[in-house]
């Protein structure tokens, strides 16, 4: 049977970017979503598709230090920029403090919302090292979870904040945040 033509409708564009602290590149159609580029082209399947209309938050990644919906971002928009996904959190087999906390506190059940939840939690803890419960709930209000009822997710994030307050961990998150001069202004 003849191979179906994969020749794209609009031509492919080559792009380079940073993903999880390392250079990456791709050749994509202009209409390709960042979500699909990460999953299909870079095989980083930790970022999940939940709605493709920007509501559920399962596709959340960190772009130049701010969380964005990768389902509402085109891959080409991030050419030359700095993307972090959940795969950038662990160091080899060693889970990050946030991931450990989710594990300990039973902050995930099916795990589908979890990568996006972690991204939002990272952003929160970067901005506020000691958030109260309301601040935590507001920060993750854009990440829908159907399994947990959020209670243990809040506990997980609170546990990391507590550990940081107590000096038990040096930083709440890894080296995710770019140096100030590399931040670019995007949408």
């Amino acid at each position, binding site marked *: 049977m003849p191979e179906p033509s994969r020749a794209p*409708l609009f031509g492919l564009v080559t792009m380079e970017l940073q993903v999880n602290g390392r250079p990456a590149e791709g050749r994509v159609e202009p209409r390709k979503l960042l979500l699909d580029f990460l999953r299909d082209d870079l095989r980083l399947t930790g970022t999940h598709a939940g709605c493709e209309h920007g509501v559920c938050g399962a596709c959340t990644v960190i772009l130049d230090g701010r969380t964005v919906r990768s389902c509402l971002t085109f891959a080409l928009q991030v050419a030359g920029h700095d993307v972090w996904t959940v795969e950038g959190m662990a160091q080899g087999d060693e889970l990050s403090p946030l991931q450990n906390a989710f594990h300990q506190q039973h902050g995930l059940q099916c795990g589908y919302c979890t990568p996006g939840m972690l991204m939002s939690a990272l952003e929160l803890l970067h901005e506020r090292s000691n958030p109260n419960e309301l601040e935590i709930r507001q920060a993750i209000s854009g990440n829908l979870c159907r399994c947990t009822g959020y209670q243990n997710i809040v506990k997980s994030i609170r546990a990391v904040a507590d550990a940081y307050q107590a000096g038990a961990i040096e930083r709440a998150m890894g080296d995710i945040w770019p140096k100030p001069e590399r931040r670019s202004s995007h949408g």
Partner: protein
Amino acid sequence: MLAAGFLRSPYARARIRSIDLDAARRARGIVLALSGSDLADIRPLPDMGSRLTKRWLDRVRPRTQFPRQRLLAEELTHWVGEPVAVVVGGDRYLVEDALDAIAVDYEPLEPVVDLRRAAHPDAPKVHPELEDNVIFDFEVALGDAAGAFATAERTLRRRIRSGRNAAVPLECRVTAAVPNVRTGELTVYSGTQTPHTLRRTTAECLGMPESAIRVIVPDVGGGFGGKNSVYPEEVLVAYLARRLGRPVKWVEDRRENLLSMTQGRDQDIEAEAAFDGDGRVLAVRVNQWLDCGAYEPQGPVVTYQTFTHLLGPYRIRHLQFHGRSVATNKAPQAPYRGAGRPEAVLVMESLMDGVASELSLDPAEVRQRNLIGPQALPYNVGIPFRDGNDVVYDSGNYPELLNRVLDTAGYHSLRSQQAERRKLGGKLLGIGLACYVEATGTGPFEGAAISIDPSGEVTLATGGCSQGQGHEISLAQVVAELWMIEPERVRIVLGDTAHIAYGAGTYASRTLQLVSAAAVEASANLREKLRLLAAGLLEATADDIDVDLQNRRLAVKGDPSRAVSLAQVARAAAPGWGSTGAGDGAGLQATAYFAPSTQAWASAAHLALVEVDPAHATVIVKRFLVCHDAGRVINPLLAEGQIVGGVATGLGGALLEEVVYDEAGQLLTGTLMDYLIPAATDVPNVELDHIETLNPNHPLGVKGLGEGGTVGAPAAIARAIADALQPLGVDVDTLPVTPERLFRLLQGEAQPSHSAK
């Protein structure tokens, strides 16, 4: 891997005059495009009535007429979102381009969308081959309701409506099929809750032996019942892969999911209660209509389950119940977390509060007067469950559950606060209660295949699977305890038809309960086999053998020098020259299928404290308490997670979630901005308590609890809102209590029905 995509009907009810697939077939990157008339070599999906047991049919004698669901719509479409054509191509982007190029000539017809009108014998028919739209109709009588009503001191009536809900798992449906063109076998990966049923149905439809199909369920991002049915899309993906000789994958998007995953609730129930001056409910009469949309892929489960759960933990000896599933041109209905129980609890708790209100009694007191006491158990309710057996509450302590939540909440103090607030005006406090029982662990069976590796690792395989419940952990705990080894040395294999011959699946709060019972039986058999083999090798009797899996050896009791290693026993168990193992009994493995004699009845009490702001028509759930009884709890952390998650879902059903169709049968809630599921700022911290009354029909005393939070929360919250609004003289009778509905209640207006005007 090729991508598949579906063209879906834009009309609720239309005749398909023609479908032109030419442009789609010629589109870039497309290998195949098919419509309903191209599927002559596939058999239709099995009859949805096939799940009904003879015993139940003989006792209940319902009127049934089940329409046959097509894989792709042929002459007629039945709901907006029904699959009409399928396209396969290089990737989903190309497939979507091709779907746009398909030209369908529809003749739109008047759709049937109003539930009560659809039930009328003269209503236009959703399925022309049936007599009318009432596809399931039953009546059951308990005691003498007519007599009780005739002589009762007081009666009251309510009409309670539960809005339609969507399951909305975070991960949509996904199916991938990989054919082996050399052997003709097919491996299907699907996010299903029922792998063996998917295998059987796929085999039937494709005309293949079951043994040539393997279904593997990978990590699944939530199910909640929505992944319990075998869908046309799943069968078609398997068919396409086989026909093309290439792997094919379909990834549902959220729009499709809100359009065509099976939905739940959507009931209109008229109920009357007859009661005495002390608030004791003597008799209940119910007329039930359930809107099942175009099909009921699992038969009338939900409709009937509302009936079996209606009387709840209350001592009511007279009941007249007339229930119906009514077809309309909406998405099909199948069990969705709670599966008819929440609607039943909502009705009964509304009646209880009605009684309290009429007699100026405290609502908690009325419930206490009606609850069945622990000394009365086992309690035969006197009605048939869907397996045809009597409903018998086997164990429980319903008054204790209620007392505990009242105590923990500081009920009397809350009533004082409520009274204070009423004097001050402004925001109103309301307290709502829900006491319920919950059938868990439905049959017909579930299996456990236990095997032991010479390394000492124990494996349990079952047809149950996981969509986040953590069965991998709780089952490992059970096996670890049965075999006295560390949980880390236990391997759990879920949802893979190659590892166990038969399975039913994960739904109805059954998996841990049934699989653990099967594991106990299989382990006993396997331990006996080990002893026999070791005894043979050591020239002793089986009773004299000690099994020490920790150290991988079996020894004669009291004489450790006479021992054999597990590896030696494994070799002896394998067929071969001079070995003792042979025939069916070969190998260190045993499989048991546990068929429960009846349901296990879990129970709980819920208390909701809400604050209603009349100025803004908003409701905040300030506190939510649960005291539940699921028998022996294997893993408290997992159990609590299930309950809190269930409460959140129930809160959604009470305040936020409603699938809305307009008069043309168009879905108005087609995005997550319109169909709102609870976010982190909507759900309070749930205060949890529990008691354990052991399941007498289970070796470990386990009952189920996966749906519990969802079963009671809508009623508790609805009744709390009604309680808050009592001074205004209005009652809550329609869920969800959206801001608009609350506003109208506050204005004293009638409730709008579920179709938007």
